[in-house]
């Protein structure tokens, strides 16, 4: 293979991000190798979304450097940045499909970076792209919904369409920002499994943020914990148990409020686990 396999696909060095007086990220160092599946774990407000947005150049760091696929994002011109973004796909908690467009056209928007000029309407896309889009829809099990409006689908179905849109980019990196936080437990499990399968089949590098510990365990290769915009945990997921993660979390929690938040999350996780056990 070529030189990109040697250097990591993502390298953050000393990244800090301030929004006014709020420090969303502070001194983050993170390296992700090609093909790794990384879970970003953290409570709400810990900076997960902000970190992911840095990896796609949607935010630029206040300090430090973000290197993605061998390019230093803060130094890029707008059109170069777009070229990097085309190789990095992102899926969102709220799916972010265009509600009034058909499912197929939504998937096709994933290919816009490869096309010149704006497109509107299915006829504006070349046939082989349409075939590719339908193939991706088939892969996520949404082929027969291709011509329905996106807003007529359930949440789980919309997230599958969003995954197909991401695949349309033929990405090297897949970023997912709490992809199942708006879904019911059953669709959550399906969507998480789908992402994992696709990552394995296509050899994608995945960075996925979650705030549920139980979903994270046994899903990723590696768990990175964020707290107040700092990396407080970075460990292989292999053989890690829930109580171990919570213990680490508990040790790094400095205030009682944080501890109780973690405890209630643990309770929720256990409750959810029992609920899914009950279904089985």
């Amino acid at each position, binding site marked *: 293979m070529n030189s990109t396999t040697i250097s990591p696909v993502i390298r953050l060095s000393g990244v800090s991000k301030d929004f006014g007086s709020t420090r969303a990220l502070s001194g983050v160092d993170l390296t992700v190798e090609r093909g790794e599946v990384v879970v970003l774990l953290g409570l709400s407000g810990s900076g997960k979304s902000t970190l992911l947005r840095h990896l*796609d150049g*949607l935010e630029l760091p206040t300090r430090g450097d973000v290197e993605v696929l061998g390019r230093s994002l803060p130094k890029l011109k707008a059109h170069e940045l*777009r*070229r*990097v*973004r*085309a*190789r*990095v*796909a*992102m899926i*969102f908690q*709220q*799916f*972010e*499909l*265009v*509600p*009034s*467009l058909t499912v197929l056209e939504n998937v096709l*928007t*994933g290919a*816009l*970076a490869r*096309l010149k*000029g*704006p*497109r*509107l309407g*299915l006829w504006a896309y070349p*046939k082989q792209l*349409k*075939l590719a889009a*339908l*193939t991706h829809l*088939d892969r996520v099990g949404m*082929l*027969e*919904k*291709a*011509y*329905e*409006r996106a807003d*007529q689908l359930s949440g789980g179905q919309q997230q599958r369409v*969003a995954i197909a*849109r*991401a695949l349309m*980019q033929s990405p090297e990196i897949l970023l997912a920002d709490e992809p199942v936080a708006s879904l019911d437990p059953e669709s959550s499990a399906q969507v998480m499994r789908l992402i994992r399968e696709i990552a394995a089949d296509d050899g994608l590098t995945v960075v996925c943020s979650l705030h549920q510990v139980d979903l994270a365990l046994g899903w990723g290769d590696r768990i990175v914990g964020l707290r107040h915009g700092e990396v407080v945990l970075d460990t292989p997921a292999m053989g890690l148990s829930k109580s171990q993660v919570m213990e680490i979390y508990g040790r790094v929690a400095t205030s009682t409020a944080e501890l109780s938040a973690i405890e209630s999350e643990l309770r929720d996780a256990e409750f959810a686990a029992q609920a899914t056990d009950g279904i089985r």
Partner: protein
Amino acid sequence: MTALDVAGPSAGSAEDVAARAPRRAFPAERACAVVVLVAMLIFSVWSLSMLDFSWGNIQSSWNIAVKVFSRMGPISLPGPEDLFSLIGITFGIVVLGTLAASLISIPVALLAAANTTPAPWLRPVGRAIGVITRAVPDVVLALAFSLTFALGSPLPGIFALGIHSIGMISKLFADAIENSDDGPRLAIRAAGGSRAQEFWSGVFPQVLPSWIATALHRFDINLRGSAILGYAGVGGLGYAMKVAFAEFPTGYGRGLGIACVIFVMCVVLEIVSSTIRRNLLGVQPLGRGLGDRIVRAATKNRPAPAQRVAPRGEVDVHRMLRRPWTRDRVRDTSWTATGLLVVVAAWFLTDIDFSQVQWQFVPRTIESFWPPDLGSYSFADFAQAMLVTIQVAFAAALLSLVFSLVFGSLAARNVAPSGGVRNTFRVILVIFRGVPELVLAIFLIMVTGLGNQAGVVALAFGGIGLLGKLIADSFEEVPNGPERALTAAGASRAQRYLAATWPQGLPSLIGNSLYLVDTNIRSATILGIVGGSGIGFYLTNASTVLTLHGQVTTLVLMVIVTVLAVEGVAAWMRRVFR
């Protein structure tokens, strides 16, 4: 035992309580606002009294009207062929003008919307384009560009509507963009899309329904106002009406007939456009016209049905390449085709002849508006004329306010003594709104031979329809807790109205009245053009001569400043009386 006993001895006597009670707080800003309001009310009363609505004057106009009606021929219409060609031209001008304005409004709205503007300093530019185009009356534009086109040509009309309508359309387009969901746009940006792709794939599909609804709404407004364009020599029904009214007494029957045609056309097309807005787009028609109301009443409680697509047989990627002709797709396609057909038809109906256009006049016409000047007049002349126009606007607003307080209150469910009364007054308000006030004004001006009085009556008439409805709605929206509390305490209907409904409805009443003054100033300017009074008189004179266009700029700037001042006061009042 009485209530006083319960309070106990420590409560003290009544005087004691009065002495200990806090002084009534009255912030200075509120006091200022009250003073301004009272001043405006006094100004309105004074304006009304200045316009000489004396008994003798009313009698003499009544006599003129009687004479006119007794001597004019029977109401008649032009021959069917003429009539259809006139209708076609008016329809075509309004369609093409509105379409042009909508297309130009897209880039203007992109500049003005906070989330699409390329640079923050361009936002005020986009807004300014909207404010200026809205402030220049379409008639003035049509007059100003009449030199460039042959008399009776539709082009100045298309031009005028196309520029004037940008103000409202671009404002509403920009609002729609700002209200759209940012997420899909960011998703396209995250996938490497360009700015243009972000807009056309992520924003445009979201805002399109609301944009079409806005364009259709503006189409209705432009149609109602199109009669006035005839005064600038723009062909169509308005011009035919003007020509007819110029022939006394033989033409009056025809003029009246044409006025009726315009009225019917307004109502019919408003019904059509509201139906489209409702059925195609799921946007409730919110307009003030008769058609909007009928559609709203007819479609009440009928939610738009959701549709599902279930492909038959086996699905595979290659078969799915062909999009099935579902009901949704058939519907969308036929609407698109109909829309295109209407535009093409409008093009042919107006019979635009570009060879008649004197292109060499276009740049000179545009240049001629700068710099603003006073010509042979003094600023005092213009100020005096502006004052007359403002007087007409305020006087009409006062008349509307008085009548619509009565009508609007009785049309409010929580005020009217019975459902029957409420419905009766709702219908009365609908009728008031149905009449295009500008057509009414032309008619009154023609018949009575009076300028300002006729203008005030016509504006007041239209204003009752608008303000009455707004009052009724705002009274109905008042939280009904206080009313129920007073009813429980044994208050009468009238006491409840004054003590609970009024205080709660007052802020929106003030805001709506000022809004009426604002629209009245624009309308009074236009009426002055027809009736030859106020600032409209100078506008007519100056806009037809290329070398006098500097005066047009001065006059329009004066109108802009006045309207902005009223809008500013309205915004301040809304804040203070919230």
